[in-house]
């Protein structure tokens, strides 16, 4: 097949591209420039589209022996990922921009463009596996549980999964580094990227404050009594305990946690740990990369964070919304996050959490 290798400049995408070449594909390396004003250097594990990263990607492509180009996707990234990140926070939800990037950029804008140009698909360095079965191609967890990225890929629909190749899902990260070393790739020991690539400082709250302003508002307890002030509701996350700056102690001295963010009234509601407990969740805009889920309840697992646990649940569709009822309560669940349903290690589908109870 003729495929585009999305190369970030990191070790994973470099090895993925090399493996795709070895598998006999005709591969062209592409680095996505996602910032219209890229930083020159990478600082530690933050950022993923600095000029230095594009050099690393180019060098890896040269060593692998494939053509290399840079695609400017800064406008698409800003519109599809950065603006969504801001508007979600402004609406009191907690978005996952990596998911949006996979959904809107890597397996949409890039895949569509690749196909129009005569390519068959996109290969990336994500840790996940695909399998061909009676129901077509399905998405599965990677063998390395610490690196498994099926969660952030669960926003892909069937067609996108069919156009995706994930050559690293069968290998543990530690072995990928050894393989990169053996292949002569200089990025073999480059640190993994963490955090949000477009917030290079790592200070998400500060980044949001700079862009959304910092309108002071009340922090209230569950009966509505004001017990403090905040500097912008969107800089808080459900379940957050630290940094509330509260001076009024609870009667029994127990800590308070953020229970709710109300953007319309710019209010942060706090309460006791047990009030964070959630036993069911509803998600909107579901996407199924396997057989479509129906109204009949099915036993399975739900995961609500990129590296969170798979929680036992019963899931079903209720109208246009995907519902998961947990076997055991979960403490602290933010709306805006993705709920991803698994059947064993197979991804069933995902939805954006809009309501918890």
């Amino acid at each position, binding site marked *: 097949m003729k495929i585009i290798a999305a190369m970030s400049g990191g070790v994973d995408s470099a090895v993925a591209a090399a493996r795709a070449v070895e598998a006999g594909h005709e591969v062209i390396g592409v*680095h996505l420039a996602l910032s219209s004003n890229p930083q020159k250097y990478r600082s530690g594990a933050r950022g993923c589209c600095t000029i230095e990263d594009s050099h690393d990607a180019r060098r890896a492509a040269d060593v692998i022996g494939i053509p290399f180009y840079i695609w400017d996707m800064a406008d*698409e990234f800003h519109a599809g990922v950065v603006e969504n990140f801001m508007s979600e926070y402004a609406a009191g939800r907690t978005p996952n921009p990596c998911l949006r990037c996979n959904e809107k950029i890597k397996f949409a804008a890039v895949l569509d463009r690749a196909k129009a*140009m005569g390519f068959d698909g996109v290969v990336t360095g994500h840790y996940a596996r695909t399998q061909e079965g009676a129901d077509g191609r399905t998405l599965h967890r990677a063998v390395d549980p610490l690196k498994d990225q099926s969660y952030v890929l669960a926003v892909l629909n069937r067609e996108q999964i069919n156009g995706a190749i994930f050559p690293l899902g069968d290998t543990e990260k530690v072995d990928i580094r050894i393989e990169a070393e053996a292949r002569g790739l200089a990025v073999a020991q480059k640190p993994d990227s963490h955090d949000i690539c477009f917030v290079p400082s790592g200070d998400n709250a500060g980044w949001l404050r700079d862009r959304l302003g910092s309108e002071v508002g009340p922090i209230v307890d569950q009966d509505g009594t004001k017990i403090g002030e905040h500097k912008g509701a969107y800089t808080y996350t459900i379940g957050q305990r630290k940094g509330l700056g509260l001076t009024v102690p609870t009667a029994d001295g127990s800590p308070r946690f953020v229970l709710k963010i109300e953007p319309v009234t710019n209010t942060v509601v706090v309460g006791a740990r047990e009030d964070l407990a959630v036993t069911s969740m509803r998600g909107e805009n579901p996407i199924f990369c396997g057989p479509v889920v129906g109204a009949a309840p099915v036993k399975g697992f739900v995961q609500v964070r990129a590296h969170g646990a798979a929680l036992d649940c019963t899931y079903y569709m209720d109208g246009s919304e995907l519902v998961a009822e947990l076997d055991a309560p979960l403490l602290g669940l933010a709306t805006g996050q993705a709920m991803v349903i698994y059947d064993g290690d197979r991804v069933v589908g995902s939805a954006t959490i809009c309501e918890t109870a």
Partner: protein
Amino acid sequence: MSVYLDHAATTPMFDVAIDAMNSALRKLGNPSSLHTEGRATRKDVEDAREVIARAIDCLPSEVIFTGSGTEANNAAVKGLFWNSEKKVIIVSSIEHHAVLDPALWLADHEGAELIQIPVDSDGLIDLDFLKRTVAARKNEIALISVMHSNNETGVIQPIAEVVKIAGDIPVHCDAVQSFTKVPISYKNLGLFAMTISGHKVGGPLGIGALILRRAVEIPALLHGGGQEREIRSGTLNAPSIVAFAAAVSAHIFDATKVAQLRDSFESGVIAARPDAVINGESAPRLPGISNITFPGTQSDSLLLLMDSEKVSCSTGAACTAGVHRPSHVLMAMGLTDVLSQSSLRFSFGASNSEADVQFALSVLPRVIERGLAANSVGKK
């Protein structure tokens, strides 16, 4: 088959230049040394200087060898500015970054006032604008720099008129693309300074020259041994200088033949894509450069597709990150941001043939079709 149509970026070294360079590399001797070996190398360098001086019609002492055309442009723009009490720099709006950026740097750091001469839709500078500006600001202008021909469109600028309008004001001319492609006489043009480069004319990379009027002293960028008139220090790069001269004296570039190839290519393109636009078509142009807008496409997609069809061309000038930016040259000619990012440069050289043209034309229709498709889905 693979076809190279990016000779304006760099062109293959001529065999005579490679041979000259190889034998010079085997020679021992720093041209500044006083012993036998040093004198022998110095002789080779001075022979080469005379060859280049004859080709550009200047005095041998007016040739200052540099490490690149960029260095020569920097030395000229900064040097002529620093040499003057005056603060205004006038450049054309379509200069190569090697002229534009030093001028912008002087504006940002040294109090220069930068005035850019607009161009018309054919890419020719507005001489009336220059006349008005010179008339109004005559006593404030440190230098004027206008390129001999543009590297993206090949459009040749009216340098003789620029010099006439300038009067006593020093004029620098970046002639990197024009040298050996069209007749140029430094002396007859009456320029203060001119830039030429080795690798655009069949010589090696890493050698250029600033042609600077005799007895004009400008401050150095590189201080050291003072090898080149105290204006440029650094051990003379004898093998590259010798090879540069060998390429210049070979007269291998046949302007008539190259212009025929370009014309054949352009008529083939227009036949295949009647909506394509040849930028600067009605202006005088270099024989080898063709800049074409393909409406509805994205030039970086086209470049990838041409490359995978084994045809090498260019989107203009790439920046450090390799991200394609709209061409300041095409935008100065009045193209929109979108159209200027829908354009490719094809540049022909001495090594091209009609078979190359026909091959490029044979792949072009499917490249454009796919480029149009990619643009309609992948990009807004």
